[in-house]
């Protein structure tokens, strides 16, 4: 029974972290502009995050510590400041973008300005983290998040040419409604959206909160593959749906709701509600995970108390961090009225830029028997880590120039 609950943790992590406003926006852009031409980025990104999640979960089970704790203990305070400061910015952007996304979903249904909804969504988010338990956050979002699979159903309803899609994963066509710079800019955005650092902090801390031990190593592997596979199925379907429904009509995703038109093509007016529900649940879950992930990271690097289940007074700084972040996030989106899509594109680009700092330490940590005992990386995982680090460096160097050229 406990293992099933843990698999629920994986699925939540996948929904909240994988299918978030970043994935929805970049997948929608990719499908509507380049058809099946960017499916490979989503598939490759998924393989990367499966490896990373498996490793960070194994580390949590064997080392009896979360990833950020080990970052400080193994690499020292000065090094830990690097991922800490990068994540301080990235988390804020991602959380604000997701609060914006969830509010935008409510605007689509009600017609009331999304800036007003931001306050309600932000307060509900804060209340959930302030009073709710880890399992409430986890099971609630994972059950509701199943709605994201409506994109998969839509892909079937719309008659996706599966053979062509499968071929283009291996042999993509770069030709589409946009230049090569835009193509690679969206590809970098997809990687930045899929390989989310906060996912790693959240997942390894979740393992600690649930008291994982050696017996979880195998279950953890299942969670990584099933959970991330679930998220990938939903995200890949968004590309398919937009490619089939929007690209032939020349509709490009330049606003969040345009992605929903694909669902309207499949389900009629119900498509609107399904899209709004997917957007709301996934964004709300991702906002919760990202800001918790950062609270975990800070308190673990500093060695302070962290706990979602206990009362706020029992882990004061932990609660203060996410409270402050949510307040400032609300102010940014509600008062400054920043467009959630633009914020999202910026957040995914920034994440791609900072990836090396987050994935680099994996190579050393995952081969240290002090934490992993007999479960250190085998050669498959080590080659995977090396390739992921290389990919991260390529993304980091190219992301900023691509953002400038690709957007302009």
């Amino acid at each position, binding site marked *: 029974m406990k293992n099933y609950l843990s698999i629920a943790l994986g699925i939540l992590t996948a929904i909240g972290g994988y299918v978030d406003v970043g994935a929805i926006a970049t997948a929608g852009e990719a499908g509507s502009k380049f058809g099946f031409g960017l499916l490979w980025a989503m598939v490759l990104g998924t393989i990367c995050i499966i490896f990373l999640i498996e490793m960070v979960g194994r580390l949590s089970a064997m080392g*009896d*510590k979360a990833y950020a*704790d080990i970052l*400080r*203990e193994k690499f*020292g*305070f*000065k090094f830990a*400041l690097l991922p800490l400061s990068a994540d301080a910015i990235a988390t804020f952007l991602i959380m604000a973008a997701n609060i914006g996304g969830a509010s935008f979903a409510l605007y689509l249904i009600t017609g009331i300005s999304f800036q007003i909804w931001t306050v309600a969504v932000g307060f509900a988010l804060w209340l959930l983290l*302030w*009073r709710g338990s880890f399992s409430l956050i986890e099971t609630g979002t994972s059950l509701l998040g199943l709605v994201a699979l409506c994109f998969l159903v839509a892909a079937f309803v719309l008659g996706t040419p599966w053979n062509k899609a499968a071929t283009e994963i291996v042999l993509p066509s770069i030709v589409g409604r946009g230049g090569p710079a835009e193509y690679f800019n969206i590809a970098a955005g997809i990687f930045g959206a899929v390989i989310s650092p906060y996912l790693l902090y959240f997942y390894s801390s979740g393992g600690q909160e649930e008291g994982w031990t050696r017996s979880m190593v195998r279950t953890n592997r299942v969670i990584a593959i099933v959970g991330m596979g679930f998220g990938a199925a939903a995200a890949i379907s968004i590309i398919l749906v937009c490619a089939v429904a929007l690209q032939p009509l020349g509709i490009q995703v330049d606003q969040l709701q345009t992605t929903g038109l694909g669902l309207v093509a499949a389900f009629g007016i119900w498509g609107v509600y399904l899209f709004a529900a997917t957007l709301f649940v996934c964004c709300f879950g991702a906002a919760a995970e990202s800001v918790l992930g950062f609270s975990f990271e800070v308190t673990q*690097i*500093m*060695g*302070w*108390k*962290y706990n979602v289940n206990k*009362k*706020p*007074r029992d882990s*004061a*700084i932990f*609660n*203060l961090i996410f*409270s402050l972040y949510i307040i400032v996030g609300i102010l940014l989106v509600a008062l400054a009225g920043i467009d959630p899509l633009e914020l999202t594109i910026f957040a995914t680009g920034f994440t791609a830029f900072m990836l090396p700092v987050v994935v680099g330490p994996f190579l050393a940590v995952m081969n240290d028997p*002090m934490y992993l005992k007999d479960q250190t990386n085998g050669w498959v995982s080590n080659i995977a880590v090396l390739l992921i680090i290389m990919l991260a460096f390529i993304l980091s160097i190219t992301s900023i120039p691509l953002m400038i050229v690709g957007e302009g």
Partner: protein
Amino acid sequence: MKTRLLLMRELVDNQLLDSQGERLTKVAGVEAELREGSRPVVRALLVGPEPLARRIGPRIGQMAARIKRVKKEIRIPWEDIKDIGVDIQLKVLAYRSDATRAEDWVREKIICRIPGSG
């Protein structure tokens, strides 16, 4: 308890726990006594903003030293240490160790004043 330790691997940056296993903070530095003719001896573990700032660089350390009114460096005498494993466990409870000032301050001044905190 071990008498010979690797300073950077087994002491500095490692987790401090109180006598009940409660997380306090991580070790920021150590205080060693140099003695003529024999090996230096570690007298205490240091935590707090000043030793931490010194780790970043001497200039940031000086800046931290200029901050007024806050206790910037907390010294945990070697005699208070119960056990050193992956983590360092103390013989005393959290509130006696003085190492949880930040957590205590945030709890008393901010968190407890918000409804639903207790």
